[in-house]
């Protein structure tokens, strides 16, 4: 008998694990958080399908933030790092063909955005965004510079830990996820009101990448490993009962 393929609806999202909408220490959430109860329903085809992103959309430098905005012969300034890992589902299976997009501040903690007000210098050779698509085993990799921490208007003196934003597109719209990767050892992790919306140390740890010496390129780049987990689908071997019966 072949292995049971999870092709049922998506496993409900664990709302006791995911952050709440209203988290007052993160002030912007106060007026942007729905207050009515969410409408809970099993996923339908509308959430169990999603667009397909082919590897053909990718340019050669899309996963290289050191070079993808740099003038020819130049490169972005800052500690050179490789970020790699796998996109998995809750059943532990690799998610192939997932679109992974990432964006970040430069080494000084400055974003390339006209609303950005931090005085740290822009790096003319750093755009701050990249993307890739996961391989058959769900693995991905990109090269960048390590972003810097930066201050942000919330409390009088709040600083974000160094982080990289991730947007992940799996095989179902229900899996759509945006999150952030932090760097092991950053003292700002414990102080940040945005990290503070996470409900447990386990959740913080799940977003904290470790230095991965095995993947460093000697004399070139250090490496951090960051796995991401998307919602999984239920197994359906015995599922033949129509809903409501």
């Amino acid at each position, binding site marked *: 008998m072949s292995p049971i393929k999870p092709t049922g609806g998506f496993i409900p999202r664990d709302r006791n694990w995911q*952050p709440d909408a209203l988290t007052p220490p993160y002030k912007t959430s106060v007026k942007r958080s729905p207050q009515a109860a969410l409408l*809970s329903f099993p996923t339908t085809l509308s959430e169990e*399908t*999603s667009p397909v992103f082919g590897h053909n959309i990718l340019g050669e430098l899309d996963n290289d933030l050191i070079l993808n905005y740099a003038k020819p012969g130049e490169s972005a300034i800052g500690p050179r790092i490789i970020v790699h890992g796998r996109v998995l589902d809750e059943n532990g299976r690799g998610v192939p063909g997932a679109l992974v997009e990432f964006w970040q501040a430069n080494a000084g903690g400055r974003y390339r955005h006209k609303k950005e007000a931090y005085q740290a210098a822009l790096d003319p050779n750093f755009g701050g965004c990249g993307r890739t698509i996961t391989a058959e085993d769900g693995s991905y990799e990109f090269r960048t510079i390590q972003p810097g921490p930066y201050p942000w208007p919330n409390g009088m003196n709040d600083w974000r830990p160094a982080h990289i934003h991730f947007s992940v597109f799996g095989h179902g719209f229900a899996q759509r996820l945006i999150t952030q990767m932090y760097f092991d050892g950053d003292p700002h992790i414990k102080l940040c009101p945005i990290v503070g919306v996470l409900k447990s140390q386990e959740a913080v740890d799940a977003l904290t990448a470790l230095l991965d010496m095995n993947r460093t390129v000697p004399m070139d780049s250090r490496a951090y490993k960051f796995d991401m987990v*998307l919602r999984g689908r239920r197994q359906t071997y015995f599922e033949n009962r129509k809903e409501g019966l």
Partner: protein
Amino acid sequence: MTQRLDYLKESPSQTAGPYVHIGCTPNFTGIEIYGGDLGTSMKTGPVKGEEITIKGVVYDGTGTPLRDAMIEIWQPDAAGLFASANETRGQADPNFTGWGRSPGDMNTGEFTFETVKPGAVPFPDGRMQAPHITVWIVARGINLGLHTRIYFADETEANAADPILTRIEHQNRIPTLLAEKSADGSYRFDIHLQGPKETIFFDI
């Protein structure tokens, strides 16, 4: 010690922050890269069905438009088929992607999707759902992306029989899910994150 379930936990969500546009629609922010932003156009050629425009604004609890949100929509073609690897019921319109992504207007926050009126798609029990579009909203201050749906006010019969709409406890909130035709022929679908007109958001 008992056995342990070896499922993984979904990665915790974190806000998309104020600069989601750098990552997902970089060209919109002036970072010219990739040869264009993904999801800008949902049509790659002549499409089947009724072509429609949907416009709206995401408002916070004070009535202020969000100008740093990203809105994504996902829908079937006019025949109810998805352009997805998981679509097993037939071949969707090859000129229609079904997926749109909008950063909203830089000044007003208004998003616009040029799309087609979606066909009906079955519920898991086989009953047909009313035509709808799935919506996902992220922004600074939103800790976990919000799911909702666009239904159409002019699909009265289908809406009245829809397996989800008919099971909503507070029927007076259903209009928050209905796109209405505007004078210019486009559909209007504003999203209210909180307040008396708070949109129904889905845990789905």
